[in-house]
């Protein structure tokens, strides 16, 4: 990454001129090719695809009914019948993990999707609307982003009670301000660009400018951020379910299985071990995918802020 002429600017003039000359023609193809050359991005894409397929086809892939009890057969370590063993009620863990990917991805995708849409709308309003509205919205965004994520989630859960819908709401409340700020910054910088100014003098409506020019341009960076935030949502779902405040049993969730495993850590350590694996692989997958996308599409774009 660092071997380009960026190492010492001002010296490598010829190389830089070449690059700007070509850039407009090759962006798409080069982006895809760059992505495919990057082993990390490809690994991420494969992992994400595998989890998506697993979630979609869970009923056909899972070898057993994830709810079927068989108390005689409880706490079985992994075997040929039960590749991941069984839990405290004798349910097949592999099947529960496969169904658990459905729960995790459903919450992650719905929550980030809703957040993205709301973030785009609010961000464009803040970036394009009147100044006082911008100031009010930014104050609200900033206030929300100072809330400690997990504690705030606990507060919402206390009020609304645990459940999938509460989880989604929490993620939306936490992510929207962050996305909206990103979109607002992009909108502000685009608003000043010459071609938008030209459109405005020609009398284009705000809707047209935002819909036709701004929106398509802000989606790219947002996609990268989304891909990197999905692991955070997966972690949050699993963590809250682990605490017993997320997905309610008996519905399979990786966090629930981890909690059941924690209770019997000494007698049946296999539960914690096998339930951690999909959690780690899926968060790695989405993060790698996001990294690869970012490096391929826009190396200048950096995710700001730390892990939350």
């Amino acid at each position: 990454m660092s071997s380009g002429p960026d190492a010492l600017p001002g010296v490598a003039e010829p190389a830089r001129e070449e690059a700007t000359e070509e850039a407009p023609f090759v962006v798409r193809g080069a982006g895809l090719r760059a992505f495919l050359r990057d082993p990390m991005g490809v690994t991420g894409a494969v992992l994400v695809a595998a989890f998506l397929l697993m979630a979609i086809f869970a009923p056909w892939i899972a070898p057993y009914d994830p709810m079927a009890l068989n108390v005689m057969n409880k706490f079985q370590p992994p075997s040929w019948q039960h590749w991941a063993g069984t839990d405290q009620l004798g349910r097949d863990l592999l099947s529960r993990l496969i169904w658990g990917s459905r729960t995790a991805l459903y919450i992650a995708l719905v929550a980030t999707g809703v957040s993205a849409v709301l973030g785009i709308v609010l961000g464009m309003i803040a970036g394009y609307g009147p100044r006082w509205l911008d100031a009010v919205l930014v104050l609200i965004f900033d206030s929300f982003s100072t809330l400690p994520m997990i504690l705030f989630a606990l507060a919402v859960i206390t009020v609304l009670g645990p459940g999938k819908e509460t989880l989604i709401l929490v993620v939306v409340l936490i992510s929207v301000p962050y996305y909206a700020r990103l979109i607002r910054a992009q909108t502000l910088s685009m608003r000043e660009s010459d071609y938008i100014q030209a459109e405005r003098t020609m009398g284009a409506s705000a809707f047209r400018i935002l819909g036709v020019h701004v929106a398509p341009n802000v989606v790219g960076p947002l996609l990268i951020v989304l891909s990197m935030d999905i692991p955070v949502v997966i972690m949050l779902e699993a963590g809250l379910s682990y605490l017993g405040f997320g997905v309610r049993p008996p519905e399979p969730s990786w966090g629930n299985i981890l909690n059941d495993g924690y209770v019997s850590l000494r007698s049946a350590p296999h539960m914690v071990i096998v339930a951690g694996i999909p959690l780690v692989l899926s968060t790695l997958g989405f993060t790698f995918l996001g990294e690869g996308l970012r490096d391929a599409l826009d190396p200048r774009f950096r995710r700001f802020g730390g892990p939350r």
Partner: protein
Amino acid sequence: MLSYAIKRIGLAFLILFVVMLGLFSMVFVVPGDPAGVALGPRASPELRAQLTERMGLDQPLHVQVANFFANAARGDLGYDVWSRRPVLEMILDVFPNTLILGLVSLGWALVLGVALGCVAVVWRGTFVDRLLGVLSVSMIAVPSFVIALYSLLIFSVWLGWLPAIGAGEKGDIGSQIRALILPSFAIGITWVGYLARLVRASMLEVLAAEHIRMARSFGLSERRVVLTYALRLALIPTVAVLAMGLGSILSSAVFVEAVFSRPGIGTLATNAVSNRNYPVVMGTVLFMTAFYLFVVTAADLVIARLDPRVRDVLRS
């Protein structure tokens, strides 16, 4: 500088005000009343009325708002629904545990992260750099409470080297340190990756600057160039991130504290949620938000002092 400080602190208070307003109104947007939330659906009407009165919920709305802010300003965050202990006292009781956990995690992560970032810079473009890159991303991605569970299983259950629960005996520093190792490992590992990347990126940016070329053109040793001329600049963004880190680490400690049954803000809040102890949950959220704002604002002011450029922009 002074006017900047006033502005920055004023903004922090404004944000805190909005947060409080948001938390306060949250109780009213939900169906049912806070007393109902606290007591659960099967509580008797008498009990409910009693609690309603105790929480001041029978007063007109504007009086409630005024009371809420007046109390908060005096440090009164309400009372535990069950034990009637002041919430602030309960928080201050366990807060040092969480703070120490956060500081220790961030401390070792900072040392290792900056070191790895510098290593990646020195060997930039090589296999080492790429390996560290993948490693950093992985450390960022893996959820800390999975690491907590795995390390608990390996080091406490199987090997028996370290305690599985608690924060150590009071007065026994040794046991307290031993109780810190696994939780701070689980929390800090994320930050090692994050800081390594941050230091690498800002270092590369600084090293490409013209003034570094200038320093090199005078034959300064590479060690001097990296450690005196580049690192000082590269660390400025790190300070800002560290402050945010301390703020956010403390709340992400919730899961890890739960795994190790370690007393702290996280366990306090978790137990309160289980008991529907609404004032305690709200109190912790408010307290941690205020703490976060305090740290971030302080860091901004420190940076303004560290970086002569910022210092001067502010002065003029």
